[in-house]
């Protein structure tokens, strides 16, 4: 693990332990300066990043966890069949303002279908969804226009909310910066790399400042740094009161979420993850 990796891991650990974002940035910047000026292996100077993060938490404490707010999304008894195949059976999920919910499960178990039903893009065979406030949705792929510039995507989404071009462009670039991406310029979406295109996709979904944000594995193609930025960004949105539902198959991130909906068929795993409220026959 080189210095950059060590610093990234430290940042992730601090975030995970709910150290206030500003304080965490300050600690990482100080450690980086110390290592740059003094040299040396961070493992020797500071020890393992997990241990150092623990010491920091003991020293400065953590930011008080925001209390979950009112219910923003309530999906109840969602059942969906494709022909004779039942993809979802009686899936239920409640997410409050300031919470992150993860929807997990094996390939083909209906994670994306569940999210599309929550977004109102497809109809279920049974069940209903109640959403309070503005809804944002980021698909797994697609959802951008190949021949439009990045800024034009921001303008297009902004116009939907009645936002003028200049502010929409600025808001898009600011949101992109949160993911460590300097958006803008005259690059068409089709020339962006897969990961950058997903950053555009994600930025578009947060641009309308939704109260409920639905993300369908939005991190495809992200490098390690962007991936950390992505979870940091989710943390910031959660702290600002957004209710977030993220489809994921990366179980190592589940400690960052408040509730889990496991859609894996029961007979396949023989267990249910904590927080599961139903989901499959």
């Amino acid at each position, binding site marked *: 693990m080189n210095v950059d990796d060590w610093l990234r891991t430290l940042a992730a650990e601090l975030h995970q332990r709910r150290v206030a974002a500003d304080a965490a940035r300050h600690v990482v910047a100080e450690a980086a300066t110390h290592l740059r000026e003094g040299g040396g292996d961070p493992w020797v100077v500071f020890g393992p990043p997990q241990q150092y993060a623990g010491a920091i938490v003991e020293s400065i404490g953590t930011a008080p966890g925001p209390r979950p707010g*009112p219910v923003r999304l309530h999906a109840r008894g969602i059942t969906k069949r494709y022909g004779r195949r039942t993809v979802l059976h009686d899936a239920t999920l409640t997410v409050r303002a300031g919470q992150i919910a993860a929807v997990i499960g094996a390939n083909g178990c209906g994670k994306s279908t569940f999210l599309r*039903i*929550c*977004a*109102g*893009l*497809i*109809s*279920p065979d049974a*069940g*209903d*969804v*109640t*959403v*309070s*406030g*503005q*809804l*944002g*949705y980021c*698909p797994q792929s*697609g*959802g*951008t*226009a*190949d*021949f*439009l510039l990045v800024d*034009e995507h921001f*303008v*297009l*989404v902004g*116009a*939907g*909310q*009645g936002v003028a071009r200049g502010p929409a462009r600025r808001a898009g670039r600011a949101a992109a910066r949160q993911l460590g991406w300097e958006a803008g310029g005259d690059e*068409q979406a089709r020339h962006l790399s897969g990961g950058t295109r997903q950053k555009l996709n994600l930025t*578009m*979904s947060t*641009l*309308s400042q939704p*109260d409920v944000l639905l993300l369908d594995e939005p991190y495809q193609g992200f490098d390690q740094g962007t991936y950390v930025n992505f979870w940091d960004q989710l943390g910031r949105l959660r702290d600002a009161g957004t209710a977030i539902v993220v489809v994921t198959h990366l179980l190592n991130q589940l400690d960052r979420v408040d509730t889990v909906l496991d859609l894996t068929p029961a007979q396949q795993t023989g267990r249910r993850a904590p927080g599961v409220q139903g989901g499959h026959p």
Partner: protein
Amino acid sequence: MNRLVTVAEMTLRELLRRRGVLLLLLLMPLTFYLIRRDAYLGQSVRSLLLGVGWAVSTAALFATTAARELEPRLRLAGYRPHHLYLGRMLGLWMVGLVISVPFFLLPMVDGANLRYGGLAAALLCSVGVAAPFGMLIGALLPRELEGTLLLLTVVTVQMLIDPAGSGAKLTPFWSTREIATWAVDHTDQGYLARGVLHGLAVTALLALGVAAVANVRLRRRRHLRHLPVG
């Protein structure tokens, strides 16, 4: 209004950036015109108009298919279905008008003795019908190959069918043919009136079809209930 204009503008921008497509859009009617140039001029002009209609329909088909994944998220971002389909139609009409200009000038340069007002009306009719026609096919058939094949079938029927037969009136570009006959053969005003009426009716019907499909596809689903933030 701003939403409508923004969608129209983005459609226009997208199409104008596809330089290869634009070139082919211009090449298609030109080929149609030149291939019949040795024969009777009227046939050459009618082919040109059909070429313009086909080119704009194809562009509309591909633009509609390309927007399929983007539109649901724009709907969530605050657009209503009519902003999306009318905006796109408006953009496609503008593209159609842009590519029509050289084809209005071509017979003029070629020294054809035409009623040029009639040629302009026929071009307008061709573009007017073509945009919602291609959009409707794109909305009904989600895959480009199927859509292109259907478009090809309709245009082939249009070329081969007897224009005097009653079945010809059911083809989308019959109006263009009638107006072209008035412009090229200097026939009576009845051709022009029939053509304009048919063109307006077909455009309106196709636009209504596009609206119906878009309203169904982008409707608010009954299972989803929106509450204000409380």
